[in-house]
């Protein structure tokens, strides 16, 4: 199979070389000189209309940007490098700063802090997490559990190391609002992200708390909150809402026919 295609390529190449040798030497036209002179800049001289290819079947998209009237720059080709939406926020992504705050009045009692349902046309990417446990006393250990569609994803355990710090961002050992805990939490569309919290109090090495479940918190404050920073990356075509293969690139318009079959780019 490979030998056959290689043979065809050689035949095509040799025929092209023979044909080129048979042709008289080319004379550079003034148009070509002019085009080369103005290449890459906005022409102020009469424009050269773009010559269509013999096999030019790029569909005309009424809502998209029109093609240029002048020649393309003489670049031989390029590569679409797509940074996927869960790595780089796309242009139309929405920055989110989810904040959930509850009153957690008892030790050793898990409580739902908050849930977020990712919209149908976006994927949620959480990059940074910080929290406060203002009802915890010095030395108290607390824990946050993250669930996606009721499935456990991860847990973070932290401790009040400096209850006297005036800034709540400096009270905890591993994260604060000024030094957020970095993570990579991707929540797909239509999924629900829930966070649960528990205040254990002082624990030993095995994690056994000195408190019994339901012991009241005596600090007087009743604040337990979590902040999640990230972005909602859009998954649908911004023009008409059609689905878009965000990870495939636009293929210089060549995927438009395919996209039309799947409901995008309706005229």
């Amino acid at each position: 199979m490979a030998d056959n295609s290689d043979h065809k390529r050689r035949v095509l190449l040799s025929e092209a070389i023979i044909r080129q040798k048979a042709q008289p030497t080319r004379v550079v036209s003034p148009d070509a000189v002019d085009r080369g002179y103005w290449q890459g800049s906005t022409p102020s001289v009469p424009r050269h209309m773009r010559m269509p290819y013999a096999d030019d079947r790029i569909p005309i998209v009424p809502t998209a940007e029109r093609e240029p009237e002048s020649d393309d720059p003489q670049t031989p080709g390029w590569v679409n490098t797509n940074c996927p939406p869960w790595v780089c926020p796309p242009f139309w992504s929405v920055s989110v700063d989810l904040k959930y705050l509850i009153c957690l009045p008892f030790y050793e009692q898990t409580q739902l802090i908050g849930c977020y349902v990712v919209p149908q046309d976006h994927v949620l990417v959480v990059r940074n997490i910080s929290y406060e446990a203002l009802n915890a006393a010095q030395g108290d250990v607390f824990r946050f559990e993250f669930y996606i569609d009721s499935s456990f994803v991860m847990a973070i355990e932290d401790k009040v190391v400096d209850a006297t710090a005036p800034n709540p961002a400096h009270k905890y050992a591993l994260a604060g609002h000024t030094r957020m805990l970095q993570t990579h939490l991707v929540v797909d569309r239509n999924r629900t992200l829930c966070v649960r919290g528990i205040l254990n109090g002082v624990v030993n090495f095995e994690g056994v708390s000195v408190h019994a479940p339901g012991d009241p918190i005596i600090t007087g404050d009743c604040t337990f909150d979590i902040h999640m920073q990230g972005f909602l990356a859009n998954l649908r075509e911004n023009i008409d809402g059609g689905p878009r293969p965000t990870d495939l690139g636009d293929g210089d318009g060549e995927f438009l026919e395919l996209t039309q079959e799947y409901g995008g780019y309706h005229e």
Partner: protein
Amino acid sequence: MPSENTIIEGALRAARIVSIPVRRPDWVDPSFWAYPLNQTKTRPVPAASSWLDYLTVRPSRAGGLAPEGYSAVIKGFVATSEADPAVSGIRYRFMLGGRLLPAQEFGITDAIERHVQRNDTYPWPAFHRRTFIQVSNNQLLTLQVRNTSGAEAVAIAGLYGWFYPNLGTLGKGGQEDGNDGFQGLEDDGR
């Protein structure tokens, strides 16, 4: 036969419509299929203790966060103590697959571990230290802690990274683009 220009134009056109997804590997940047790896712990370590398992990363075992076929990469960690590290006597070491990682047994020095000097007079919260530790799907990474002092000391540690699907088991090339999927399957003999 098409003319020479048509051939060249066709080649240029083919070059133009090719879309090559340029993606850094999963152990450099997390992908959509990556699971977060955030494990933190703050516990008191008994006085004069031996080495104790403190944080454990087991990518595909029971109790792990990610399903079978995932590996893990550790990109940052915190390993410090609540009290002044100069007197707390807390020591850490990384064990990977039952072996001590070379040059990964370390004590704590105050200015480095708690990162006090970074434009902030408050020592907390602690900064991450950067690292790069690969944990295969059948390996076990353990951050062990030891207290050499005569008093109980609180160890504070965290591991940060992500779980990513193994290239060999999931056929990632087939998911990412249509160019090399079948070729990769043939190479693997599957």
